[in-house]
């Protein structure tokens, strides 16, 4: 029985090899290159203390350290809940106000900012 088990395995995988000849795999919705699912991101929370021109924000983090961030056009700005922005989910820089609590998402390897999310208005903490 053990020999049969090993034989069946060997056949399964050995005949499978010639098929694996190109990339990407068929199907593959989960790992589409346009999907950032495989890019490790981190998030930090911060509060806006000043909104400047040229898409620049001054924020403080949870340890009250101040940071100046200039947003590129590529940075996506979203509302956590549409309720806070009259049904709008996607926001633009003009929506940002002093006192807004933000969640900043950036790529962990390069530190590049990818998304800003305005936290729910009634969110505690």
């Amino acid at each position, binding site marked *: 029985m053990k020999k049969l*088990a*090993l034989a069946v395995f060997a056949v*399964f995988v050995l005949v499978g090899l010639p098929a694996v*000849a190109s990339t990407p795999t068929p199907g593959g919705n*989960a790992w589409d290159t346009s999907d950032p699912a495989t890019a490790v991101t981190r998030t930090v929370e911060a509060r806006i203390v000043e909104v400047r021109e040229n898409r620049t924000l001054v924020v403080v983090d949870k340890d009250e350290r101040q940071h100046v961030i200039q947003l590129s056009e590529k940075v996506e700005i979203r509302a956590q809940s549409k309720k806070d922005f009259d049904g709008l989910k996607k926001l633009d820089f003009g929506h940002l106000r002093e006192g807004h609590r933000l969640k900043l998402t950036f790529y962990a390897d390069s530190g590049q900012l990818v998304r800003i999310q305005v936290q729910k208005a009634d969110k505690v903490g």
Partner: protein
Amino acid sequence: MARLRGWFLAGLGLASAAAWAWLARGFPATSSRRDVLTFLAVIAVLFLFSTVALPVARRLPPRAALRQILLFAALFRILLLFAGLPPGEPLRDDLAGRRVAYSRFLLYDDDVWRYLWDGYVVSAGLDPYARSPQEIRDRYDDGAAAPAEEAILDGPLAFDVLDNVRFSSYRTVYPPLAQLTFGLTNRLAPGSVFVWKLLVALFDFGTCLLLARLLVRLGRGPEACVLYAWSPLAVKELAGSGHVDAVMIFFLVLAAERMLAGWQRTGLGAYAASVLAKLGTLPLAPLFLRRARPGTWWAPVVVGLAIVLPFWRGLPNLASALGAFGGDWTFNPGPWLLIARAFDLLGAGDPEAAAHLVTKALTLILVLIVTFRVRPSDDRSWILGIFLALAGVVLLNAVVTPWYLLWVLPFAVASGVRSWEVLTALSFLSYLVYAEHAEHAWWLWVEYGGFALAAAVEWGRQGRS
């Protein structure tokens, strides 16, 4: 000499613990190629340690060896509970449900957030299969949410958990027992990654204990459980990344062990629980029923009904969610890819659909062959049958995530099949997707080719002996 070997085993355990501690707390785990390759290198060393540990443990008194193996197995799992918690983040924030303290990715994996979200839904008394997380979010935003949905999202943490759920427009695919465990941990500590991982680690450690017992029942040395208990794949994927598969594996090994002990009702009941934790073990039903007396067949029905009853109305939605998952996803495929490519070359309109159909048929045929080839009264033959059928189920799937290989690992260890261990090691190559953001052919070649080679060598050795 035995004393020296004891120290050597302890040295391997301590070195492994140091590596796990670094991976859990000191390693940045980003998508940079350097980090991913470092991760693979450390994992390779950990595999080497676990492999070397077995011959060392075999030369020690069995009790002393098992004690050390289990002690370090527990230590590795405790260390990995902290994987994903950034340095300086207080654990008490996670435990108290004040804020999301863990990073989105727990050592290159983010499935845990779906479990936590499902936990909120279940403990609010809602049907987890009725709506996707995105649908609930949209209903909330549009003011159309049910009061229970509103209450979830008005809580302090749920929105942040929801933000981390990947593919949130898909409905959940986790069966009722998994949902009950999600709901239970949500009641204990809403949104806590640590509490969820602790539950997973407890189930996984339970599997280590049961595997040692199973090995004894099969007349093998219990120290072979080191191949599971110290397996880098088990430690990383279960305690580290928190995969719910630990629940299914625990109940499956419990089922097998109880069947061998002659407790057939308990065994069949535990088998039903494993199916309802994750449906991948369903094809083993003929093997279990063939081993059991027909007079005990009511046991899995009763256990199954008791678990399913609270979720009864959602089952059609679960079936359609599973259909969507089965049809849309591929990852790290082996034989499935062969068949899809063959249909592609033959000009089939939908090669993936054809591959799904053929692999399902092959799985059925394999399970039937194994079921009727094993001698149900022969313990070793029956356990090998479980190994073979379950390995076929996993290998013929379009999605072969590394942690699916863990379903099979206890039975590979119990059957003395070492080539599966090689596959669990090589499956880590699939983590290169975190650096490359697409699958590449060469690592599938190395993974499945390396396994084929190991299986062939093992087969050849068996033939000679």
